[in-house]
């Protein structure tokens, strides 16, 4: 082997090792920040438990007779799996981005030779295990005991599920990056996020299963990104999808996720030209 390819291989290894060190450090520091305030942390864990409220509501609706294809046990499984997926995929980076753009503290991030998106991602990923520290083990235990029969037995769907959960995080995170990057143009894009989040609430399956939508509306909902942020991974785990539908959904989901990411990067690059760094 000649010297040039060897040097290229060494250089790639060095770059890989460096990226791994940066990501590990970012994750460690984000984790330390997340647990800096103990009481706030406990309250924060409790804030994403809306699916439990919906579980109580829909369980009482289905207590006498099934609602559509959902009996009481199916609702337990649906909302507990929803809780788990939501815990694993929830993001809030748009708030950070808007605050940093307005106050000028984004400048400090821009002075470091690491893309701010990577830092935001690490920040988010590091605190996900903490968010689910209490509720995920409880949800897993309850689903696997009370509603085990509702889970899929198809090994292919079990293989799709982790990819679908990862894809759901990618869509949620990158759509937030898009809206956050718009803050560079508008100074604040929180109102747009509020609009997005209200659509997410209704069309992601967060409040009720998407099967409850009338068919014509369900077709429109299916082409929006919202079902792929929550409902798709939940339905994969519950076996409420055929294998073919699961693979199609996976393709649509990752297309949306990577599309949003590309859009966010483009907006970010354009937006930085307009960044005024006030106060920073």
């Amino acid at each position, binding site marked *: 082997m000649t010297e040039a390819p060897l040097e290229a291989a060494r250089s790639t290894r060095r770059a890989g090792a*460096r990226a791994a060190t940066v990501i590990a450090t*970012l994750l460690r520091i984000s984790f330390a920040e997340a647990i800096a305030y103990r009481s706030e942390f406990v309250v924060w864990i409790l804030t994403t438990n809306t699916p439990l409220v919906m579980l109580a509501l829909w369980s009482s609706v289905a207590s006498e007779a099934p609602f559509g294809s959902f009996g009481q046990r199916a609702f337990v499984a649906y909302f507990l799996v929803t809780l788990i997926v939501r815990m694993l995929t929830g993001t809030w980076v748009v708030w950070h981005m808007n605050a940093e753009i307005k106050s000028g503290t984004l*400048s*400090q991030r*821009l*002075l470091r030779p690491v893309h701010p998106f990577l830092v935001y991602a690490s920040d988010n990923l590091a605190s996900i295990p903490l968010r689910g520290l209490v509720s995920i083990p409880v949800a897993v235990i309850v689903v696997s005991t009370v509603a085990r029969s509702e889970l899929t037995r198809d090994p292919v769907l079990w293989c799709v599920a982790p990819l679908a959960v990862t894809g759901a995080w990618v869509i949620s995170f990158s759509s937030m990056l898009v809206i956050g990057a718009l803050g560079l143009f508008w100074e604040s894009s929180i109102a747009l996020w509020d609009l997005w989040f209200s659509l997410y609430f209704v069309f992601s399956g967060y409040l009720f299963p998407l099967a409850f939508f009338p068919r014509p509306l369900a077709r429109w909902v299916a082409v929006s990104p919202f079902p792929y942020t929550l409902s798709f991974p939940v339905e994969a785990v519950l076996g409420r999808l055929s294998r073919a539908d699961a693979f199609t959904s996976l393709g649509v989901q990752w297309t949306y996720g990577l599309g949003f990411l590309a859009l966010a990067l483009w907006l970010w690059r354009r937006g930085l030209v307009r*960044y005024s760094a006030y106060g920073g």
Partner: protein
Amino acid sequence: MISVRHLVKHYRVHQRPPGLLAALRSTFRRRFTTVRAVDDVSFVIEPGERVGFLGPNGAGKTTTLKVLAGLLHPTSGEVRVLGMDPRTRPVDLLRSIMLVTGQKQQLLWDLPPVETFELNRAVFDVPRADYTRTIDELVTLLHIEDLIKRPTRQLSLGERMKCELAAALVHAPTILFLDEPTIGLDVSMQSVVRAFIRSYSEQHRATVLLTSHHMEDVAALTPRVLVIDHGKMSFDGGLADLVRRTRPDKLITLSFSAPVAADRLAAVVGKTIESSPLHAVLELDGAAMKEVVARAIAELPILDLKVEDAPLEEVLADFFARTAGDA
């Protein structure tokens, strides 16, 4: 090297009068004005130079520093730092510069400063041995050994500023943009920070571009000054030249070993700007100074005699008043 040619940076700023009606009106029709923050500024700074960037509030100093650091994109003009265009924020450039602002911080608020040092070590790709050596040096120079393991939020402003400087220098940058690094610090802390910047710059042959409203910072650190006012460069040269050109007269302070009557003092030295039986302050140009000082030494009971330039604050105030008058 830093090279700035015909730099222009304009901001579009929304303006609204106070009051509810104005607030409602601005919802439908916004009025914008263009602020010419930097208006055709050019200069060159050689490697290792320490340069003071002076001007009143809103003169365009911080905007220029932010353009040099790649945070702001110029409206027009050409900027090169180490031969690179800061707008594209190339990694090699980011590894060679640091912008420290007295009003904003990079330290992680909820964690001890040592965590920010570790973060910077990772993102700037500093080898562990170099990092350890640099941190040891910084900790010693800044006396921060006891501070770096306390949460940042529990440090005083001065303590934070010292840790802020250490965090900014973990990757040993060769160009420092310092924006009001001593703002809000007490006199002794200002002196520590000043000594540190000087020592760092000398040891690392680092280029320093410093803005400060504390003239002691400028006098102690930067032999060369750039003066900017209303976005336009009005002086580029030695600090001594600026003083000589603006306030050529010297301040002479005389202390007496015995009381001197006012009429006797006036007869020997002429007009004073401040006097008491035991001391007097005169302001004289170079030609008159020799003659008056010789006469005072010969005829008055001189205990001590001090000759100095006018305070830099006064020099700058005069300079800005004069340039405003010229405009």
